[in-house]
């Protein structure tokens, strides 16, 4: 398997394959939690409800048999737009039995490394040493995540929280950013979540004035990223890898 590669997703999913996959070996470590609050201002951490409009652009639309309320800010970066909150509810669904599931986006990088490893296992990526995973997260400029929380009807406070998606970007904090490791839990694929994840990540990067956002895409996901505004080989510029293993 190529060192740099894009991962071949497990069968069911077409749209949200990760961009890069890596080799690794697992090791045992103590709980590693890296609250990683990259912040720009004091108005973070509020979970805000915003207007719909975003979902029209998502092909898969509304979930069947559920009341899915889509709460989403307009996704195009405009001239005077509100800064993206660090954390907010992307989708809220009320199931027939009354439980409420929320998909929460966060750019705060609060990822439990064990959860991440479990998610990587789920999408079929080769294992990587936990300490390296933790270091990679720490050294990333923005780590964007999707978590699902489920609350029973009438339950107060947060329900169980589960990591269901992640994408991260490395950057020099001034000019360039590169997106790596895009993944969405197979059971949550096909709902436009991967697209939302990338859109929000892009928006967060643009708001920090990073002008050049790049990534490397497997041939089968070039279209996916094209639809998000990425152009392959702009002006003939080619992505090259040093002695790729393949």
């Amino acid at each position, binding site marked *: 398997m*190529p*060192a*740099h*590669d*894009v991962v071949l997703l497990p069968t069911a999913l077409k749209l949200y394959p990760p961009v*890069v996959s*890596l080799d690794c070996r697992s090791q045992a470590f103590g709980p590693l939690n890296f609250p990683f609050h990259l912040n720009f201002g004091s108005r973070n951490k509020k979970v805000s409800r915003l207007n719909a409009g975003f979902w029209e*652009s998502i092909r898969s639309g509304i979930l069947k048999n559920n009341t899915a309320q889509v709460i989403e800010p307009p996704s*195009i*970066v405009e001239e005077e737009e509100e800064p993206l909150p660090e954390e907010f509810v992307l989708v809220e669904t009320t199931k027939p039995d009354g439980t409420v599931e929320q998909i929460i986006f966060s750019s705060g990088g609060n990822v439990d490394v064990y959860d991440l490893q479990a998610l990587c296992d789920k999408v079929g990526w080769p294992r*990587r040493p936990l300490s*390296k995973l933790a*270091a*990679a*997260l720490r*050294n*990333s400029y923005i780590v964007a995540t999707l978590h699902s929380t489920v609350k029973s009807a009438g339950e107060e406070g947060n329900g169980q929280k589960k990591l269901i998606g992640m994408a*991260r970007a*490395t*950057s*020099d*904090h*001034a*000019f*360039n950013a*590169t997106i*790596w490791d895009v993944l969405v839990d197979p059971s949550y694929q096909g709902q436009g979540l991967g697209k939302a994840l990338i859109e929000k990540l*892009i928006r967060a990067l*643009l708001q920090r004035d990073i002008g*050049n*956002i*790049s*990534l*490397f*895409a*497997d*041939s089968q996901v*070039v279209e996916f*990223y*094209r*639809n*998000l*505004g*990425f*152009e*392959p*080989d*702009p*002006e*003939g*510029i*080619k*992505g*090259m*890898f*040093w*002695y*790729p*293993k*393949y």
Partner: protein
Amino acid sequence: MLLHNHIPITPLPLRNPTRRRNAAISANFAVSDDSLSSRGFTFHRTIENLNLDHLNSVFAAVGFPRRDPDKIRLALEHTDALLWIEYEKTRRPVAFARATGDGVFNAIIWDVVVDPSFQGIGLGKAVMERLVTELLEKGINNIALYSEPRVLGFYRPLGFVADPDGIRGMVYSRKQKKK
């Protein structure tokens, strides 16, 4: 120019690509430290003593847009590895390259430049091979870059492959976005 260390410059058609990769890792530099110092060049791995205005001039000389030196400084402070060559006579940078990444898995090389008056004598290769080696020594195996079409031939002999396995480099463009 005599090369002190003889390494295969063009990737050999070895049956096993891994052997080729391993061979490159263990080989010595094509442009040796001696050949650099004997010609009056010193190389540096930090931004200490690097005059950013001079660096900006080199960028401008090769056609990069001139960038705010404060932003350049910020970028260099958040760069995983960088290498520059100083021409002792003028005390100015004449070659440069840097790499950003996550420090463990991936690195991307940016801003590879050689002052036009110093091109063609192996400085670009010297900078690149040392930068790649430094990244490999840190355990970073996935080293990538974006190459303009006219310099693909510069990177290929250094071991870089374009679009391996169909992977495409993509860049975000605001105008591009479909709704």
